[in-house]
Each structure stands twice: as structure tokens, then as C-alpha cells.
């Protein structure tokens, strides 16, 4: 299979004020693959994916060095349009965070802010993204109910749908199942496997088993460093690094 590099990270250093959170991260993320970032708390995995849509810009003291390219284009370049970048790189957060609006408005929001006014088009896109996120059948009769009435798992799928509505190329999942029950978690995982056909997916997870189940590639990080990156199969059966082995067998973390 031909692997096409979607995201290329070269010597990425990241600082929160004076604390260095990422050290010389070199990582290639392939198109239409699920890449999982695992590692103990504070290893920098969330920090890393928040670099990919420049969410870290919100933190005043943050500073990045190194090259981070999507499709070969440097994203930290001052000329990069952050707003457009964020549309292309969607993000699903740890806690489901639908807006306190109706299901429909939640989904239409991304389109409206991107200047789309055609009602028919919006309606069509809303339906499409709900179908893609396997939520349509559950909510089709109550599109105008408040999204906060949905269960946690449904809310998270709604957030995924909201993200799909603006047609991103990459979807970042920041511990998407951290607050969900096992059945909802399973549904999200199945969805991720389905979505990788069309999108490039990066998922941060605390749950090693989840990484093992859904990802094609796994990166293990430890205190700001990338320790090992390989096919998930290899990482979970024959890791090369002793640290990875120890983490996977529960010796720390």
C-alpha cells in the first residue's frame, strides 16, 4: 500500500513559558490512517495534537519551534490562515461539548460561520454528517431539540458530526471516550474505523487498548519525547524500546 504523508513534524519543540513540553518531535502521519498517540499523563500527546490545528495559539505563553507541515505546507507560517487551517483540521474534544443550541443549529454552525447561506445545502450537509456519524436514525425526529438533551455518547457523536459538516481533511480526537461508557466508546471506535476511509485521523488516548483496537500506527510518547513510532501491530507485540514495553505492561504510567 502506498503511504502518503499528510502531516510531517520535524524537530518540533514546544514551550509553555519556560517549561519545555515537547522535545524534538519527528513524526510522520499518513493519509487515511488512524494514528494513535499514547503515553502517561503529561507526556505531551495532547499538546502535540493541539499544535496541528494551532489550538495552542490560545495560550499566551506558548511558543513553537521546528517545522510542522500539512501537505507540505508549513502551518506555523505567519501567512497561514489559522481560521482556514482549523476548518481543514477538525477536532473532537475530551468532553462532549455541543453548543447549548438545537442539534440542527450545532451542525449548521460550522457552515454558517464559514459563510454558507444556502438553506437547502445546509440541510443536506446536516443530514449527511449525521448519517456519517451514525446518529441520524437516533435523532432524525428531534433535530430541533436542544443538543444537551442527548446522552453523553450521542453528544460526542454529534460533535463528530459537527466536525464532519465543514468537510475537514484531518480529524483530531483528544481522548474522545474519556467520559463515556463502554458501549458508547465502542460506537465511537467503530465510527473512527469507518471515518478513516475518508479522513486522516489522529487520536490521543489514555487507553492503550483503545489505541490497539482502532489505530494503524501508534506513537508512544514520554515526558515530551517521542519514544517509539511504528505499526500498531508491532508496538503492541514486539516494541523495540524498553520504555514502551514497560509502559504497555503497566509498569508505569
Amino acid at each position, binding site marked *: 500500500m502506498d503511504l502518503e504523508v499528510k502531516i510531517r513534524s520535524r524537530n518540533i519543540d514546544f514551550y509553555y513559558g519556560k517549561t519545555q513540553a515537547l522535545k524534538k518531535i519527528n513524526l510522520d502521519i499518513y493519509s487515511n490512517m488512524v494514528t494513535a498517540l499514547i503515553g502517561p499523563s503529561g507526556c505531551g500527546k495532547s499538546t502535540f495534537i493541539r499544535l496541528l490545528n494551532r*489550538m495552542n495559539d490560545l495560550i499566551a505563553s506558548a511558543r513553537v519551534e521546528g517545522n510542522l507541515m500539512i501537505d507540505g505546507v508549513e502551518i506555523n507560517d505567519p501567512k497561514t490562515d489559522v*481560521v482556514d487551517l482549523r476548518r481543514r483540521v477538525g477536532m473532537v*474534544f475530551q468532553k462532549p*461539548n455541543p453548543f*447549548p443550541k438545537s442539534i440542527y443549529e450545532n451542525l449548521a454552525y460550522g457552515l454558517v460561520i464559514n459563510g454558507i447561506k444556502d438553506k437547502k445545502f445546509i440541510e443536506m450537509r446536516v443530514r449527511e454528517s449525521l448519517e456519517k456519524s451514525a446518529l441520524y436514525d437516533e435523532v432524525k425526529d428531534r433535530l430541533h431539540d436542544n443538543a444537551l438533551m442527548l446522552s453523553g455518547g450521542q453528544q460526542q457523536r454529534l460533535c463528530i458530526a459537527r466536525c464532519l459538516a465543514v468537510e475537514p481533511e484531518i480529524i483530531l480526537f483528544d481522548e474522545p471516550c474519556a467520559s463515556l461508557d463502554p458501549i458508547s466508546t465502542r460506537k465511537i471506535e467503530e465510527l473512527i474505523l469507518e471515518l478513516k476511509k475518508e479522513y486522516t485521523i489522529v487520536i490521543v488516548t489514555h487507553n492503550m487498548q483503545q489505541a490497539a483496537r482502532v489505530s494503524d500506527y501508534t506513537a508512544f510518547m514520554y515526558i515530551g519525547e517521542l519514544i517509539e513510532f511504528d505499526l500498531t501491530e508491532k508496538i503492541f507485540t514486539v516494541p523495540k524500546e524498553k520504555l514502551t514495553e514497560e509502559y504497555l505492561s503497566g509498569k508505569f504510567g
Partner: protein
Amino acid sequence: MIVSSKTTKTRGFEFPNASGQKVLCSKNVSQAIGFTVLVLCIVFALMFLGSLIYFIVANGLSVISWEFLTQVPRRAMTQGGVAPAIVGTFYLTLGAIAFSLPLGLACAIYLTEYSPKSIAVNIIRLSINNLAGVPSIVYGLFGFAVFVKVFGFGVSILSGSLTLGIMALPGIISASQEAILAVPQSYKEASLALGATHWQTIKKIVLPTALPGILTGVILNVGRVAGETAPILFTAATFYTRGYPDSIFSEVMALPYHIYALMTEGTRPEVQTQIAYGCSLILLCLVLTISALAIILRQRQRREYGS
């Protein structure tokens, strides 16, 4: 190891006499005393509130009538109604909202969303908080000096509204700031992550979510200033008008000032005192209604946004 029958040993630490009643007793007694004191304090506070309401209702109810609410005062305020004062207070309050809501909101948005973290901004914040502590009569003087004299608005609804608005401003700003800060960071992140600009996020997500909180703040603060006398003393209020104000440059009667006037001037104190109680009752009802409105809004907000 010998375990004494009167002590229980847990890892070398001796509880003083677990079976002895003394310790237990003194603990319970001190709790009972503390609790009683707290209850007494509450009863005391409620007593004052209750007697205040009772006093005003008991004295004021007798003068309240349809005529009282709808007629202009006659015969040196001893007869007729207080309708112009009610209307005046209404206009002043409305004016104060019209002035302080947009201004306060804009300040709050700037301070929470846009201001850089600098000493200057901190000083601004501190000043706003301090403004809330300035005595109301000082506002009155300020309003007189600036709006009545410098701007030449004269003693008018406009001057009074502006003065009341400025007085409500610090409260509105801090309440709005709180409401905006209470909007979960996750909503903003979600919006930004979808490719919204900062301004779109504020306009479409932050403000609608914070709106009930902001409105609550506005209503409570305006309700508070609506009952003030001092700020309108030199800026808007007049002792007596024949009819209703016809423009924002007219002087008006207002309930608080009317009460003040009834109690300090005139020739028939017994009758006037009665009317003053009536006015107080109306004012009280007005302010309570406004507060109730705020509470209802807040409840609705809680129900809608969970948490």
C-alpha cells in the same frame, strides 16, 4: 500488649476514652450551641425584613387605590395620585438600561476577551470595582456637574438616566464579566476549532450563552438604582409636575424623590406621611418585581444549560 478497657489503640495513637461519654458529650453540646446560634441569627435577620415589609404594607395599603395609581397629585400632594412619579421612575429606569447595558456589555467583553494581561488593564478592573463603592450622592453631584451643567441637558430625564446608568455600570460590568467567564471554555474551543473567528465565537456562542446571566446582572443593578434618590436629586427629579413628561429633556417626578419630598415639605404632615407609605409600597413592589424577574431568568438559564 495489654489493651486497656478504657482506650482503643489504633496504630499507636490513643483516642481519649472511646467508651467514655464525656468527650462525646462535650462534642455534641458544642455542635448544638453553634447550631442554635446560627438559627437565632437567621431568625433575627428575617424578623427585621418581616417587620419592614409589615410596617410598609400596613401603613401604605390604606392609600393604595386605582385613583392613587393613575391620577396626578392635587392640592399640594395631599390628594389625587402619584401616577407621574411612577411613570417618571419608569422612564428613568428605562433610560438607565438603554445607556448602561450596551456600554457595560462592551466593557465586559473587552475586559474578558480582548484585553491583554497588563498592569493597566488590572488598574481598570480595580477602578471599576471601586466605582461601585462611591456614595450615591457623589454620583448625583457628578451628574449635576457634567450632564446638567457642562453638557447642558438641564434637570431632565436624560441627565437622570445617564447618572443612574453610570451608577449601575460597575455592577453591570462585573456581572457581565462573570457571566461571560462562566461560558465553558469548551464551547469557545469547539467554535474556534470549526474555523470560527474570535469575533464570530463571541457573537454566536459566548454572548447567547451568557445572555441570561448578563440580563440578570443588568436587571438587579438597575433595580437597585431605580430606588435611589440621591443621584436624581439634582439631575432629574422635581417636586411636582402637572402632567407627564413630554420629552427626554423634561424634568420628572420620581417615586423615591417623591417620598423624600412628602416627608420634608408640605403643610399637612399626617396625610403626606400616609401617602409616602403608599409610595414606598409601590416602590418596594416595583423593586421586588424586578428582582423576581432576575431570579426567574437565572432559573431558566440553569435549566437550559445544565450544571
